[in-house]
Structures are given as C-alpha cells and as structure tokens.
C-alpha cells in the first residue's frame, strides 16, 4: 500500500494530480490473482463512466476485470505491460501502472478510500 494513493472497492488505485490521474491494480489484488500473464489495455481516447470495464487481466488462476472508479477519458496506457505483464506482480502500485486519464470536471472522487481504509476493506 502506498501513501497518497486513493483506492476503490474494486481494487484499483488512483494517483490524482490536478485533473490528471494514473490508475492501476492494487498490490493486494495482484497477490490474490497470482502470476499475471496478460493485460488487455484500453484504447487511448476511450471515454469512461464510473463502473465501465477498463481492462481484462488474465492470471494463471482466473480472468478478472478492472472498472473505472471515476468518470474521465483515457490519455495514455502503459504499453510496457504488453511485453511483460509480470511488471504488475513486481510493482503493481508504481512501474505497473495501467493507464493515465483525464478526470471529468464533475467526477465524484468522494467514494474512494485512503490506504488505511482500503486495508481495512480487504480484511473485512
């Protein structure tokens, strides 16, 4: 868990800097999924509503989906994950970021959790 990041109930983390945000899969979630073997990246320019499916992540155990925690538009994706999805297992909350997005002006970020709250959520 990293300080300064915001977390969602569906195991995404967000680093919010002004109207830009970087988004990824939480370290807790990568541990639950096990060895990740494929990440399907979204298209740059894709407009997201809260709850939209962002990506499909395939591990040796299962196939899971990540959801947009807030509204916005995809501005960049981490193409390094195409060649080496294992980055997500090594450093999910840093080098293993999945996408950058421009947050919609009216987006509601109040439902996101702090690191402490998310930790409590995963133990609950």
């Amino acid at each position, binding site marked *: 868990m990293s300080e300064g990041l915001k977390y969602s109930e569906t195991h995404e983390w967000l680093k919010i800097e002004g109207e830009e945000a970087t988004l990824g899969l939480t370290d807790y979630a990568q541990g639950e999924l096990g*060895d990740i*073997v494929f990440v399907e990246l979204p298209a740059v320019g894709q407009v997201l509503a809260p709850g939209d499916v962002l990506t499909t992540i395939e591990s*040796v155990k299962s196939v899971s989906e990540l959801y947009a925690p807030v509204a916005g538009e995809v501005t960049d994706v981490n193409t390094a994950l195409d060649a080496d999805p294992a980055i997500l297992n090594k450093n999910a909350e840093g080098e293993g970021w999945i996408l950058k997005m421009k947050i919609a002006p009216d987006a509601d970020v109040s439902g996101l959790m702090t690191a402490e709250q998310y930790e409590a959520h995963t133990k609950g």
Partner: protein
Amino acid sequence: MVRHFARLAEKNHHVDRAIYPLGSCTMKYNPRVNEDVAALEGLAGVHPEVEGEYAQGAIAMMYHLGRFLAEISGMDAVSLQPPAGASGELVGMLMVRAYHADRGDQRKTVIVPDSAHGTNPASVALAGYCTMEVASGPDGRIDVDELRREVDGDTAAVMITNPNTLGVFETRIQEIIDVVHEAGALAYLDGANLNASLGIARSGDAGFDIMHFNLHKTFSAPHGGGGPGSGPVGVKAHLTKYLPYPLASRDEAKAEGYEYFMDYDRPKSIGKVHAVYGNFLVMAKAYAYILTLGPEGLRRVAENAVLNANYLQALLEPHYELPYKGYCQHEFVLSATRQKEEHGVRALDIAKRLLDYGVHAPTIYFPLIVKEALMIEPTETESRESLDRFAEAMIAIARESEETPELVTGAPTSTPVGRMDEACAARELDVCSWDGDREE
C-alpha cells in the same frame, strides 16, 4: 512397443493407480467390461448410414438408453447427440431460444449463480443471451430473495447445478423453480453433479424443463484424456419438438425387426449438433453400466458417493478451513486460507505436494466464491483404505505447511516432471519451437 506404452502409463497418473478426487469431474472407476461391450462387432462395426432395418440393435440401444435417462431424471424425451456436457448446455440454451421465439416472446438474459461452472455463462453467450449472476447466500445456496429481484420479463432461463459446485443441495429448489416459471422462463439443470442424486431425486419431479447428463462422468464412460464424452439432453414434453434430430424412436405398430428408427421428420428441431448420432460407443458404455447396476445399484452409487465425501470432509475439517459447513453431497470445498496466511502455502502448492504422495490433485481455485479453494470429490468407487490414505496425505501436508513450508511450495519433487512454470507457459506461448528452445 508394449514397453513404450507401459513406460508412458507408469509416468502418468490414472485412477487404476490411486484416487483421482477432482471436484466436479466425477473421476470414478470405469468398469473394463464396458470396453468389451463397446468393442462388440455389432456395435463397433455398424456403419452409421446403414439402413435402419439392418441396424435395429444399434438404434434400439440408443432408444432404450434415452428411455433409461428419461426415467432416471424424470424428463420425457432425451437426445443423445451432444458430445460433451458444455455442448449439452448449448443445445439446452438453443432450445430455450427456440421455445421463446415460437411464442413470439424473445427474451434477453439467462440467470446463473456465482458458484456455477464456467461453461454455463459461455453457453449462454454462444446462444446469444446475456448472463446475469445471482449471488450465493452465506450457506452456499442461491439467495432466493435476490433471485426474485433479478427475474423479470427479460429472463429466458435460469441455469442451476444441484447439488451445486460447493457440494451443497439447493434445499429451496421447488421455490426457485416456481419463481422462474412464474416469470415465464425455463429452468435448466446442469447435470454435472448427477452422481449425488442418482435414484434418489429427479430433476423432472422438481420442475426442471431441461437438463444435460454427462455419460463420461456419472455413467462411467472414461474421460480425462480429452474425450470423447457424451452430453445427452433431456426435456419435458413441451420442449421435445426442439430436440436435435435425428431422434432414436420406436413405432410399436410396426413388426419386430422394423420398429426402431431414426426420426428425421422434426421440423421444429434446432438441427443437428454432431456428426451422425453423437459419440455412439460412449453411449454403449453408459448403457452397459446402467444395465449392470440396475435401479438399486444406481441408488447405491449416489449413497456411497455422498458417504465417501462426508467421511473425507469429517477427517479433513480439523486441518483446513471448511467455508460452507454441514453435511455435503458428493463433494466438498476446503480452503487453504489458513495455510496461505500463516505459512505462505497456497492451494496450488498443496495440490502439487499431493503428487509426491502418489495422489492426483483435486480441482483448485474453483468454485470462484471460495478463496484458495480445494474441491474434493472422491466418488463411490474408492475404498475406505484409499480414502484414509488420501486423508493422511492431506493431513501430513497441513503439518508440513506449518513445519517445513518450503517442502510444500517446492513440490513436486518425486514426479517425472517437477514444478511447471505456468506463468512462463502462458506469457511466452510458443507452440512452434516445442524442442524447448525459446527466443530470448
């Protein structure tokens, strides 16, 4: 040549060697006499396109196997054509579609519980429907109140596995089916777990409209090598016209030697789903099995399957988490969360370590609603000694997880092939250079 195959057999694990307790797969002993039956010249040698009057025995066998399955399930008619369980599911969903289309009432969704086999939503999607998930309650059974909220005029069908993949019987099944029928939808039973209820409960009596059977699980035709399987589908009378054609049939008005025929004149049929009649010799094995056991024998299959599973569950409950408590049916699901949290040993490691004890690993990480799941189905064909040996291995591994976890996480060490790198195999999928050379 003989030595080559004997060596391969020695390297392999199979049910002739030791227990094969794959949850949801019913890896029972397959009586060898079934192979003799399937090899009979009259069955193995008959050409599928020979005129019906020269193949009366073969058609009669299919007809009577269909009647047996109908009697076992409480259904009215059965098609033997689908070659596997998932194929049976798809046939079921295509018949659901045909039924609603005929009524001019095309619907959009099929409801599937969160404990279902992964093939259920796949069959739903292939038939052009969207899947809606219904959650399991704290007792592992379908949450009937949530089902009531989800079912509406768009619901085409509900797919249910009973007992479900947790090995728990849906005790409110009657109520569930009433909810489904009141909304004008159909109730589908995934028959993968029929081994638990043979001769005891019939899906047709509970009100199900459609179900599939797995001849290669419940009825002892071999499987596990990729088939061939056989997934017959049974329906209630109001859906018979949609069954795949041709259907093995009997015209009692005709003289003996001419009465059995393959009925192609079925205008409302969803069509053919397999070449000729399906996997004919798999049917022969299942037919021999049913005739050998008879009604009392089939009931004993279910009784012993349930007894064996409960015996193992009772032996293992002190050593592993049992998320859904109480008596189980033919299988039960343990969780390795205690071993993972306290010692870093995952369900995968426990499964691999079992190989060192000469036991096939159970199904792991399924059903999805149990963390670190180990899904165990011993079947009725294991003796008490064999169950005890399996339990001893599981208990020894629980102890090793505490004392020497690296032994478990590094397993297997005694098999012809050691721990596979599954992540590497999936990340660097390259089936062309199979000599082991990979481009770096």
